[in-house]
């Protein structure tokens, strides 16, 4: 019966009733959704409180108290960055994100891009640190919230990628010492959890480094993240190097290119294109991984969200808080993977042409 029905429906709806079993499953899942959605929507939208001065405005048994998020948004997004200067952190972060978005598209890889990075980083540091051009100085200890999360992710991946090149080449090399050292490093780091590397960076680094050489808390945590993700990137890059046809090397040799020129001009650009999807996954992993800095007392997005819960004027809105931050993370990770898929598709169609 359902198959007869399927013939009469437009194709979009017809798939819903392809066979009786399919129709039944669809109906069951839909029924579950219909049962679950109204209370959820009621909590999140219809009964929610959007405006209140403090917790008395939000009845305990009522819907979501988004007024809490409204009151705490600046704290959650910017942490302890000085209130009046938060536009600087926002602007700097937007600049950084724009640079990354452009850089993820291989069509934009050029000398101009390197120049843009140089300029962008200068402006970024100026905005974040201040101290020049009438901008009040802000110590890195006060950076927090989303700018800190983005900073750790972007620079973790950026430096990780730069350091991954020699490590990957070393793993690929004929020279036993380099090969062994790179293999040892990659396997050691990949064998331990990120949190142990962060502990090492934040607790042990000062012990291992001489007085006066110890970087700030932010610098140490960033060093840990770079150390960790370099190993994963080197592994991905090694895969990219392996995928490059032998003919490319032979052609470069016959053109008389030296080893560094061959690597920089022929091999690495191709390798980076091949690994772009894996790289996107690593960026997402790094973005999620930065949330671990909470454990070493830093106020990134998650840390600032937890700090927002400590206010005695707003007690008990943890569900709203965590759901909000989870949504921010999900949107960020989701858009990175969406952008990655788009670039990959464009690239694929360009190459097949």
């Amino acid at each position, binding site marked *: 019966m359902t198959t007869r029905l399927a013939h009469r429906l437009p194709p979009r709806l017809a798939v*819903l009733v392809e066979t009786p079993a399919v129709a039944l499953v669809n109906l069951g899942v839909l029924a579950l959704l219909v049962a679950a959605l109204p209370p959820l929507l009621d909590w999140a939208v219809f009964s929610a409180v959007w405006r209140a001065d403090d917790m008395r405005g939000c009845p305990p048994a009522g819907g979501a108290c988004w007024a809490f998020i409204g009151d705490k948004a600046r704290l959650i997004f910017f942490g302890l960055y000085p209130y009046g200067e938060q536009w600087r952190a926002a602007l700097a972060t937007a600049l950084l994100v724009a640079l990354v978005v452009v850089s993820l598209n291989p069509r934009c890889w050029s000398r101009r891009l390197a120049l843009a990075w140089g300029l962008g980083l200068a402006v970024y540091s100026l905005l974040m640190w201040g101290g020049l051009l009438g901008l009040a100085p802000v110590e890195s200890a006060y950076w927090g919230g989303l700018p800190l999360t983005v900073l750790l992710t972007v620079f973790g991946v950026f430096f990780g990628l730069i350091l991954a090149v020699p490590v990957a080449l070393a793993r690929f090399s004929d020279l036993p010492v*380099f*090969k062994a050292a790179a293999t040892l490093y990659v396997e050691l780091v990949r*064998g*331990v959890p990120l949190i142990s590397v962060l502990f090492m960076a934040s607790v042990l680094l000062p*012990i291992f480094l001489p007085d006066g050489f110890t970087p700030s808390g932010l610098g140490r945590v960033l060093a840990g993240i770079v150390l960790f993700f370099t190993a994963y990137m080197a592994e991905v890059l090694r895969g990219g190097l392996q995928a490059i046809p032998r003919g490319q090397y032979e052609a470069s040799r016959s053109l008389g290119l030296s*080893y560094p020129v061959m690597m920089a001009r022929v091999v690495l650009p191709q390798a980076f294109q091949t690994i772009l999807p894996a790289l996107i996954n690593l960026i997402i992993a790094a973005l*999620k991984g930065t949330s671990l800095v909470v454990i070493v007392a830093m106020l990134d997005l998650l840390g600032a969200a937890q700090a927002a819960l400590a206010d005695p004027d707003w007690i008990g809105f943890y569900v709203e808080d965590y759901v909000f931050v*989870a949504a921010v993370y999900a949107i960020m990770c*989701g858009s990175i993977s969406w952008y990655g898929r788009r670039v990959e598709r464009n690239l694929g169609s360009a190459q097949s042409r």
Partner: protein
Amino acid sequence: MAVIDAGGEGGAGHGARGDAPRPARPPGRRRRRRPGLVAQVLFLLVVAALAWAVVQTAAGNLDRLSVHSGYGFLWEKAPFELGESLIPYKAGDSYLRAFEVGVLNTLKVAFLGILLSTLLGLVVALGQLSPSVVLARVCRSYVEVARNVPLLLQLIFWHTVLTRALPPVRRALSPVEGVYLTNRGVFLPVPLDDPAYGAVAAAALAGALLAPAVWLACRRRARLGRRVAHPLRWTLAALLLPPLAAFLAAGAPLAVEAPQLRGFNFVGGLTVTPELLAMLLGLTIYTAAFNAEIIRAGILGVPRGQTEAAIALGLTRPRVMRLVVLPQALRIILPPITNSCLNLTKESSLAVAIGYPELVRVANVTLTQTGQAIECISIIMLVYLILSLITSALLNWMNARARLVAR
């Protein structure tokens, strides 16, 4: 000169032995052997010098604090209690014992997490591939959300919900007689110890030994041309019947010890703490999203022709899945899923944020008590390294087996 040659050849030989296909090796590295040697010697010396400088600095820094470096503190008394333990432990036992508790708790949560996340991953993967559009869409949304929210956030969320949304002990929820849900954990009844259980366990062991034998016998018959109709059913019967028979023969003793509210807490029965529960919820929901993707890719990796041929032979869809697709997909799935299990084990270290007493938490607390920072962090790294090595050895072994079967 001989030394240089040996080094160069040794390196090349080692590279050539790799079993993965290596289409490309930058040619032209050969002639650069001598600068390579200089660079290598320099590199080694610089690394050695750096290591030496670091050790010197660390020794100097530690000297100022007169901390006794070394692992001797492991035999001193640990002043703290731990929330849950698989082996007897109390404050006043040694730090070593506390670390053992931590490692066992890590293994416990990893084992349960791997089991649950693989099962959920399989269900979600099949849901995504099901012909039901709505189900597939729901499963897809789950995967997209679950893997894009940091695990740490999920763990903290579940822990907060479990300790704040569930009622206190005196107002415990009891969905089923003997089961209590409270913000101090879930209390479950356990079977009272009975002498018959020894016999049941022995029978179960016998069944476990018998089952592979039956399986092999069925296959041998099949190879000789005398196919057994349902080898899987026979094997399952061999596995399950002996303990069941022993259990029934003993008169089916089913007395259970139910948890009872006595004084402050529920006493007796089995307690699942909110920390363990939050860990399992978070790890399972997060890792299952990745496992679902791996399994889905594995199933899609089986050529369509296989399915079509099997359907043409008249097999039903579930049987096609079970007999044709899944066994082939398994070979594709196994390496990445092992990797994902290893990731889950490493990520169980995030328990430190919610107070589940696993390895990292024990190390963290010990560090605060003793000040032995280098030692405690090195223990964490060492244990995880060993776990990783064991897993990758297992993975290699399974890969080798999968390849053998393929021939």
